[in-house]
């Protein structure tokens, strides 16, 4: 079953077609990589998928529902979550609170329940607390729960951002350059983490990345983008040999 489908997707900023006739079909529990030189339109595609931009032409379907005109928060509720190229945590808040904010939509007590602090409030808060802790345990971060998130080391901040995205219970996880700014060893760890997430949480993952080792190492399928157009798509080994891809990256 396909989770995320985009057809004929185009977005135009003035005279510039940032994304031109893009197509994708991400299946359940599949790990797809999206690569391309700088300025190819990868992040723009993520912004289209998450509702930050609205497509000029084309449709995006998430989990069987068309999301062209949805707001970012509505798309999250339909089962998609993302991380950002430059980490965006709630910096001044604790690690646990960062996760708990993502549980916002899974709780439903009202303003009045909050002020009265009734049993509905306590039950739901307790549950959120426990599930958040469990999630942190999965990422081996339970000891950091009370730390202010900006004080975490870089690698852990990345992990926390991914954990926060997973807390919204997504069907598909969009990772925007998760290995950016990481050294070789951290990247290695990240690869393990991503593989683990895919198996443990049974999510589909769409991944933008420049680190070829990571992309070739874990992606099941790769789509290559240049100047907003798909220039190649397929299995990693085929992409490596693809003439158009080599040309896009290295020139003639």
């Amino acid at each position, binding site marked *: 079953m396909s989770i995320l489908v985009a057809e004929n997707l185009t977005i135009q900023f003035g005279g510039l077609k940032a994304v031109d006739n893009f197509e994708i079909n991400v299946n359940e529990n599949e790990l797809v990589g999206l690569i391309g030189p700088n300025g190819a339109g990868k992040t723009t595609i993520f912004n289209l998928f*998450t509702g*930050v931009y609205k497509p000029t032409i084309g449709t995006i379907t998430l989990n069987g529902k068309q999301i062209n005109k949805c*707001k*970012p*928060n509505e798309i*999250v*509720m339909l089962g998609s*979550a*993302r991380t*950002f190229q430059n980490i*965006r*945590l*709630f*910096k*001044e*808040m604790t690690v646990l*609170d960062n996760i*708990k*904010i*993502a*549980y*916002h*939509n899974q*709780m439903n*007590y009202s*303003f009045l*329940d*909050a*002020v*009265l*602090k009734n049993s509905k*409030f306590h039950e*739901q*808060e307790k549950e*959120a607390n426990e599930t958040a802790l469990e999630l942190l345990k999965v990422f081996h971060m339970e000891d950091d729960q009370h730390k202010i998130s900006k004080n975490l080391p870089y690698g852990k901040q990345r992990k926390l951002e991914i954990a*926060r*995205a997973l*807390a*919204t219970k997504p069907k598909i996880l969009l990772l925007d350059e998760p290995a950016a700014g990481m050294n070789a060893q951290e990247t290695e760890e990240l690869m393990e983490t991503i593989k683990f997430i895919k198996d443990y949480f049974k999510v589909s993952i769409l991944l933008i990345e420049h680190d070829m080792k990571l992309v070739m190492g874990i992606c099941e399928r790769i789509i290559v983008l240049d100047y907003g157009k798909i220039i190649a798509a397929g299995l990693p080994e085929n992409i490596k040999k693809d003439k158009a891809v080599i040309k896009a990256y290295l020139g003639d």
Partner: protein
Amino acid sequence: MKKLFKKFDKIVPMLVLIFSIFLILNTLIETRIFTRYYASILVIVAVYIIMATSLNIATGFLGQLILGHAGFMAIGAYSAALTAIALRDYIVNDLLLFIVSALVAMIVAAIFGFIVGTPALRLRGDYLGIMTLGFGEIVKVILTNLEITNGAQGLTGIPTIMSFPIAYFTMIIVVSIIALFMTSRHGRAMLSIREDEIASESVGINIFKYKITGFIIASMFGGVGGAVYAFQIGYLTPGSFNFTRSIDIFVIVVLGGIGSLSGSVIAAIVLTILPETLRDFASYRLLIYSILLILVMLFRPQGLMGTRELHLSKINDKYESIKTKLRNKFKKPKEEGDA
């Protein structure tokens, strides 16, 4: 039963504190150790606490720069005063009259909060600040030109039904509602908007809904503050809700710590009582006041409390830890002696 007891365990110390402060202050007023002048200052302190904590929702927790909070205070003050004037012959009980008028003030201020907030919150930072500043001035001009408010001459004949107990408990109710609200998922959602709007949208928070809710709650309780003020002063002119008043409230929030309710409360107390005690220094008063402000901002730019809150349990923990430390200190030599 045990569970119930445990639940109350947390609230009881707070209630004890609230009531003991009230009893002390109230006996001081009743026995006339505090003159009427002191009592009126205490009511004004309560007004400023209400104004500062309500502004702190929008400015501190939501991170929106709002420079026209006196506008909502004015709306609240005038609507409460007009309601009370109209109803004073029908409702003889002071407390009831206050409650009814304050509710009207709340509703009217909240409606204005919604009307102003909807377009305003599409703006950000300085632009929002300028817009809300403009709103405050517009309110002032409208109040000056309306017939029902008696224009620039000011509204007289407002029943001065305010007393220290009413002001005190209104303040307690407002602050507790805000505090209870902020420690819920709704409060967290607002904090996340302050931290990073894009990220909070990306975890599924409806940022527009929470911005407008925050704005409405802030204006609503701002209206309540205005109502308390109106019944204390008994005479309203549009001029008393000018830009300086907005800035006074804003300064309290900044000085107390943007995003800290207890900070707002402390700063409101200090900044209302300080100018009064400095009256002996006559014209040096404003100088000293300003220098103090500058000093605090130099040495604690995050405000007195930063974003932290004062918790009774934390104070208790600290007290316990000091106690055990001291005990260990005194115990150790003894144990060695035993050995």
